[in-house]
């Protein structure tokens, strides 16, 4: 199993490198020159020579691969460069905003998991009866509601009309509830359906029949025998959904006027703020790859057949 973990870890690191190359290349291939954008914003009149000096100070006149290598060398030491716009270290900008996004992502993942698993299990245990149909109806509703729409509706009802939750706050638990819900409901619905169908499939398996023939009671059957087998695809899905949640956080942060990486991502790309954009995207990618690495390791703990790959 250790070999498996090491292999996965190395694969993850390789993936991070590939992502960094792709991001770097894509940003630099975008039309629009950061220098021109900054200069026109500031309204200054500069000669061509002065512009060229600024360009070479920023290292933007070197060939692309050289720029990339310089970037990576510094990044490995934790220096992600300075934002073209604010001139603050990229690392600092990210550290300032990351806690809010992480908070949101984790909270919505929690909601998704708890709601999704519970409704899925209830649906599977009451197959084709009222609770099953009700749960699946809710799941379809949840999956069909766009993140931003749901967010706006929640603000309208719970903040403006009922006044239960604060608006436009980034700190504290009350401010986290509605954004986490609006972001997590979609994933919850997906998990709910997957749990239900996974469990139903497992219920029909031969080894469940063997367990019943041994005299295992229903509760033990579900919790001990069925869930662990049904979990494997569900956990995979959770890992992948984390990426969706990170992406969705951009929209949610905008709708709820929360601080976070969302606004960093959007503004840095819009302004061609290369160092910042690269830094943010790289950090997000590392978070996503990290979560999936944890998922990989976790389900080798659950499913012994995977340990020997």
């Amino acid at each position: 199993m250790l070999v498996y973990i090491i292999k996965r870890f190395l694969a993850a690191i390789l993936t991070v490198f590939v992502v960094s190359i792709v991001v770097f290349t894509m940003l630099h291939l975008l039309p629009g020159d950061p220098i021109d954008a900054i200069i026109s914003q500031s309204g200054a009149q500069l000669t061509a020579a002065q512009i060229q000096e600024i360009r070479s100070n920023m290292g933007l006149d070197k060939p692309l691969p050289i720029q990339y290598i310089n970037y990576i060398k510094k990044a490995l030491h934790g220096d992600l460069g300075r934002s073209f716009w604010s001139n603050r270290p990229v690392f600092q900008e990210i550290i300032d905003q990351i806690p809010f996004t992480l908070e949101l992502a984790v909270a919505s993942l929690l909601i998704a998991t708890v709601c999704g698993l519970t409704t899925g299990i209830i649906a599977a245990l009451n197959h084709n009866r009222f609770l099953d149909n009700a749960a699946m109806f809710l799941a379809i509703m949840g999956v069909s509601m766009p993140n931003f729409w749901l967010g706006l509706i929640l603000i309208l009802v719970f903040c403006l009309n009922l006044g239960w939750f604060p608006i436009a706050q980034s700190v504290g638990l009350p401010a986290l509830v509605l954004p986490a819900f609006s972001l997590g409901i979609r994933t919850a619905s997906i998990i709910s359906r997957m749990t239900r169908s996974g469990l139903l499939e497992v219920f029909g398996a031969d080894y469940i029949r063997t367990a019943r023939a041994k005299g295992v009671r229903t509760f033990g059957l579900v919790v001990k025998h069925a869930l662990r087998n049904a979990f494997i695809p569900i956990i995979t899905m959770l890992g992948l959904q984390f990426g969706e949640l990170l992406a969705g956080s951009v929209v949610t942060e905008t709708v709820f006027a929360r601080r976070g990486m969302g606004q960093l991502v959007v503004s840095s790309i819009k302004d061609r703020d290369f160092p910042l954009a690269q830094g943010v995207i790289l950090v997000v990618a590392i978070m996503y790859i990290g979560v999936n690495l944890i998922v990989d390791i976790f389900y080798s703990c659950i499913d012994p057949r995977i340990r020997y790959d």
Partner: protein
Amino acid sequence: MREEAKVLDLADQKMSDTEQTKFGDENLLEVKDLKTYFYTEDGVVPAVDGVSFSIKKGETLGIVGESGCGKSVTALSIMRLIQTPPGKIISGQILLNGEDLLKKTEKEMNDIRGNWISMVFQEPMTSLNPVYTVGDQIMEAILLHQNVKKIEARKRTLEMLKMVGIPSPESRINDYPHQMSGGMRQRVMIAIGLACQPKMLIADEPTTALDVTIQAQILDLMKRLKDELGTVIMVITHDLGVVAQMVDKVVVMYAGKVVESTKTAELFANPLHPYTVGLLGSIPKVNEDRKRLQTIEGVVPNLLELPVGCRFRPRCSKKMEICGQEGPHLVEVKPDHWVRCWCFAERARGETDEGK
């Protein structure tokens, strides 16, 4: 034998009377007029339609028949493992040591399953839970029904593994099912089945999914365990070879009904029902000079569209007029030899009975 004595000592008191009345005359299991129907969208399927038989202590019973004749459903009905819906045991009695299993609550049945009656299934490759070790799954059976600590259960699991012939049980106990071959998994299934030393073991086509050499080993194992533990075994099979090797008494089923029932030697020597005659005749014999195998004409009837009268009539070479009008009853044509056929109704000793 010392090892087996140790295992018996650790068992509950229920073991002792099986040892004493090994060939007693009491019936361990009596199935009386069992009817299990399946209510499907296309209609009602009478999968088991009035089946009766009994097994004495120390006996081995074989239930033989083609696919779809109701043998597995009978076994699942005894264990009350029928999926309801769409299945339902609508009538009959299943007496285990005199107590009717059909009147028990689900909780009582959970105590009985794995403990007093165990079942071993056909597909060893998929019948074990892939995420738990083999040892865990055997220990689960023990811990469910016996009031022992985990250490004790583990010790007993090792003994069971040894008893079913698995080499190096100390290391195998921590193996997962996917690390074992089909034959070994079936041995584990038997170990699970016998872990609590049940009075009866039902084996549903235990060797069908295994290759022939392993088949022989598993059958030998079951015979040995039958002798050592005194467990009553009910074997369900379509393989007459298994029947000949292992069982004392045979019940032949067709389309949900028992058509012949007698001791094994008698069945092979004097098959009476045309179906049984056909079955035995269709076994290829090495010393026979034939170009085509002998078959029984026709196919098993669709249980949703059963013929009026005798269910075997469309395929029978001896059909008479009455066969198309009324279904025959099970009659005792010779001592302890029951047949459901109009050919023998007159020859009966004046006794007709729907069950034994």
